């Protein structure tokens, strides 16, 4: 049965309490997932400071991002000199293997030509042993932090990948997920005996153990050599449906120019077969992911995951009375919203409102074409903010909200529980360890949602039963 899906647009010009962050933030995180990489944000130093501030309050880890620190003079005459100094200083202080530069609204508005600046720099320092220097175009007036993330992953492979000898390896493009999710994906790959390269891999670099001595560049990350060799892999697996496609929607120039994901780029350029499937949240979406892995590895699903899958289905059955018919509001990045929506449909929860600050226009067709068994109509709001969400939510009678910390004030107003997922989560501890993916991650989400609903019922009961 197909659900009644309504698509709403914001009635306001202003963005009131945004449900998105800016693209250089996503770019910085992607760069952090490359081994010994130091990101430079090409713009005012405030961009690096604000973005570090935000990422650090989520991950609670050191998060060095350099800046080319534009002055008024640089804003008028160009930032090449500043960027050159920044690159030299980063090399001197950090000895990085790679420097990842992303642009900002400032450097894009004045039309900085990063290709030219970088090749000039390389020419000037030809005698030195320079690190790799890559760049991505991430003006904050195009797309969201999710777009900036995927655009940067694409730029990394586009800037580095070289076809040489084939390698017995697949590329895994995991999307904007938590460090715990990344660690779990690696475990799954290993259990399938798949040689893989996960791009990017910030599972260690933004979730470090304590150190016996300070490390200027944290351990972990995808080795640059693996990014270079991504052209030689026999396949890519890409998790998501939307990726950086919202980027295109924001453009007025070059709208016709195709926005490619990393996997699409490698397929079109180097014939690396690309398998795209959504974030593996819920049984069906995870099954699709595991099917791909079975095909690629030639191995059946390891018993461990069969059991996790079985337990998850068992939990769906056991928890059905708690979940069924409950109405949920979900929000966040487009791919997360799609994943959550597909998962919740399996549990008997009706997503009555799905909101994202992204603007790819892809959510509705994707959700409309998937079989939904909800009883309630669903409103999809893309390119929306939290005040739009609050306006619509008023009359929905929702039972629960699922999303990042920024929606807390609405949950508080509606007096319903909020289950925190995604980014940013800065009003709870352990955001970097939230599991979302695969049967195991879904199980954790399922338990947290069921418990939030039970707790709500218990706290609002006149009797105070402790046997529920």
């Amino acid at each position, binding site marked *: 049965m197909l659900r009644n899906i309504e698509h709403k647009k914001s009635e306001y010009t202003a963005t009131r309490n945004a449900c998105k962050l800016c693209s250089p933030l996503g770019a910085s995180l992607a760069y952090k997932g490359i081994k010994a990489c130091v990101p430079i944000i090409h713009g*005012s130093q405030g961009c690096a400071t604000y973005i570090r501030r935000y990422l650090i309050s989520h991950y609670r880890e050191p998060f060095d991002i350099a800046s080319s620190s534009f002055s008024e003079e640089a804003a008028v005459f160009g930032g090449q000199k500043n*960027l050159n100094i920044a690159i030299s200083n980063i090399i001197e*202080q950090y000895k990085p293997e790679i420097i990842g530069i992303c642009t900002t609204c400032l450097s894009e508005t004045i039309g900085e030509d990063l290709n030219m600046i970088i090749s000039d720099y390389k020419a000037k320092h030809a005698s030195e042993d320079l690190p790799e220097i890559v760049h991505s175009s991430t003006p*904050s007036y195009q797309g969201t932090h999710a777009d900036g993330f995927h655009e940067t992953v694409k730029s990394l492979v586009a800037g580095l990948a070289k076809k040489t000898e084939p390698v017995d390896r697949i590329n895994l493009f995991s999307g904007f997920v938590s460090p715990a999710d990344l660690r779990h994906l690696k475990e799954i790959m290993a259990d399938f005996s798949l040689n893989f390269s996960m791009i990017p891999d910030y599972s260690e670099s933004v979730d470090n153990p304590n150190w016996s001595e300070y490390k200027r560049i944290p351990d972990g990350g995808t080795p640059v050599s693996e990014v270079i060799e991504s052209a030689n892999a026999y396949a890519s697996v890409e998790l998501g449906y939307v990726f950086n496609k919202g980027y295109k929607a924001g453009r007025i120039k070059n709208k016709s120019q195709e926005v490619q994901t990393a996997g699409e780029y490698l397929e079109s350029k180097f014939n690396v077969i690309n398998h795209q499937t959504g974030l593996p949240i819920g049984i069906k979406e995870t099954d699709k992911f595991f099917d791909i892995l079975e095909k690629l590895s030639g191995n059946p699903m390891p018993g461990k995951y069969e059991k996790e899958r079985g337990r998850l289905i068992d939990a769906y059955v056991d928890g059905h009375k708690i979940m069924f018919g409950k109405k949920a509001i979900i929000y966040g990045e487009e791919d997360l919203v799609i994943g959550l929506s597909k998962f919740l449909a399996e549990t008997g929860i009706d997503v009555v409102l799905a909101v994202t600050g992204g603007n790819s226009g892809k959510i509705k067709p994707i959700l409309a074409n998937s079989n939904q068994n909800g009883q309630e109509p669903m409103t999809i709001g893309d390119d929306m903010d939290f005040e739009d969400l609050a306006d619509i939510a008023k009359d929905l009678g929702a039972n629960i909200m699922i999303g990042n910390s920024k929606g807390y004030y609405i949950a508080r107003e509606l007096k319903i529980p909020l289950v925190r997922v995604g980014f940013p989560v800065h009003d709870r501890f352990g955001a970097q360890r939230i599991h979302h993916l695969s049967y195991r991650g879904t199980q954790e989400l399922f338990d947290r949602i069921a418990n939030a609903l039970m707790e709500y019922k218990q706290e609002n009961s006149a009797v105070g039963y402790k046997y529920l």
Partner: protein
Amino acid sequence: MAKKTTKTSSPVLPDPTEIIEEILAKYPNKVAKKRSKSIVINDPEEKSEVQANVRTIPGIITQRGCCYAGCKGVVLGPTRDIVNITHGPIGCGFYSWLTRRNQTDPGPEGENYMPYCFSTDMQDSNIVFGGEKKLAQAIREAYQIFNPHAIAIFSTCPIGLIGDDVHSVAKEMKAELGINVFGFSCEGYKGVSQSAGHHIANNKIFSNVVGLDDTIRDGKYRVNLLGEYNIGGDAFVLEKYFEELGINLVATYSGNSSIHDFENSHTVDLNMVMCHRSINYIAEMMEIKYGVPWFKVNFIGAEATAKSLRKIAEYFEDEEMKAKVEEIIAREMLEVEKALKEVKPKTEGKLAMMFVGGSRAHHYQELFTEMGMETVSAGYEFAHRDDYEGRHVLPNLKVDADSRNIEELDVQKDEAKYRQELADKKAGLVEKGYTFSDYDGMMPEMKKNALVIDDISHWEAEKIIEFYKPAIFCAGIKEKYVIQKYGVPLKQLHSYDYGGPYAGFKGAINFYNEISRMVSATIWSKLKAPWKNEPVLVGKFADAPY
């Protein structure tokens, strides 16, 4: 009143020359030369000069933010009843969306727009074709939704570049809507840090808000408290003291503040300045235009609080108030001394360092001194030379290109509203040796050999931690997890680690307890601090009790 806790037989601090050399050796020559002027060994006798308020070198990881952050985030952010609209792409508005823990109390019926983050969320087409229409529409929407008394517009980087004229949009909207609308040209690339944004905020508030309401409010005495941002409820603590003293606190810039109070704030008898860096401009301009004198106060530290309260009572030359001040001090110091007695065995003799703000790195030294702790190194993030060395250096400050780009308002005496009686009062008190427009800066109060570092970088912080092995490091969230990886606890002095208040007597007690907990937690022994791998520099510390 408690005796000053600094010991007379205080130890000599180690000479940090060696560590400075080690720090600079890592930098390229030009960078080393520049940084060497901002890393200074303190000598209260010699009056050393610190290079401050100069550009951060690209690629050096800095604590500093941008002009927009200083204007919107710091100065105007805490005012609850101005609807703030960020004109630009989405990031800047999002990142400054109630992240500074400024508390406010609008009362049961009061307006409070602080939890709202309005942005024009500029897209590609706005960058190409201009964003003025979108801005005007956003202002109309804010007006329709909230019907506020005032709307402020904050420009981000691309605005100046694409030539959007926020000031003419503000003017048009002011005429259309009949409310106060004003814009700030606080593009992120202006100036060298958030300090430029403070200045721009001060100017606009002074020219477009202060002086709009001439009502003389109730109370025998009226004052403003400038540069107190009510992080963690600091202003709430201080408000109670003024209430007890029978002083009407008209406006606080800008913790727990309302624009209505700003409009009326020129009618006061005295301006008290807490954070000299961010707000001295308004104090100066108000004195020129309206004759309101100002002096520096500090309510961080129990003794500093007592001193500041006494200074206020002396200014008003009111015996009743002086008696009341002594009563408050006597009452509060009982609790303070009790708390100190408990924490001192855990804190005494331990070392602290702090790198924060434009006044906090100075003010908080008071609290550590009271606990018997030694501040071995300190510096500001975005201060100027006068905040280090005192206002006597002001006539000699070099005006560089970055400072020249920030407008200095040409303020004239307002003949109708100028309070000659206040100017006369000031002159009389000056004759008696009372000081006004005074700030002696951080360095005269620091010990010989204390290391002063302006705009400290990651690398420099690492090296001085190794050298001094402090018991606690104070900075902000960006530094927190870096420093803690070294096995040194970091206390956030921007957001207070979600604690506070730390102002006044009650706040001091909170701070003592918090620091005592932090420096005596056993968890730090589980981490291997870097100096545990290296021989301890015994010689350096031979005379010191720590």
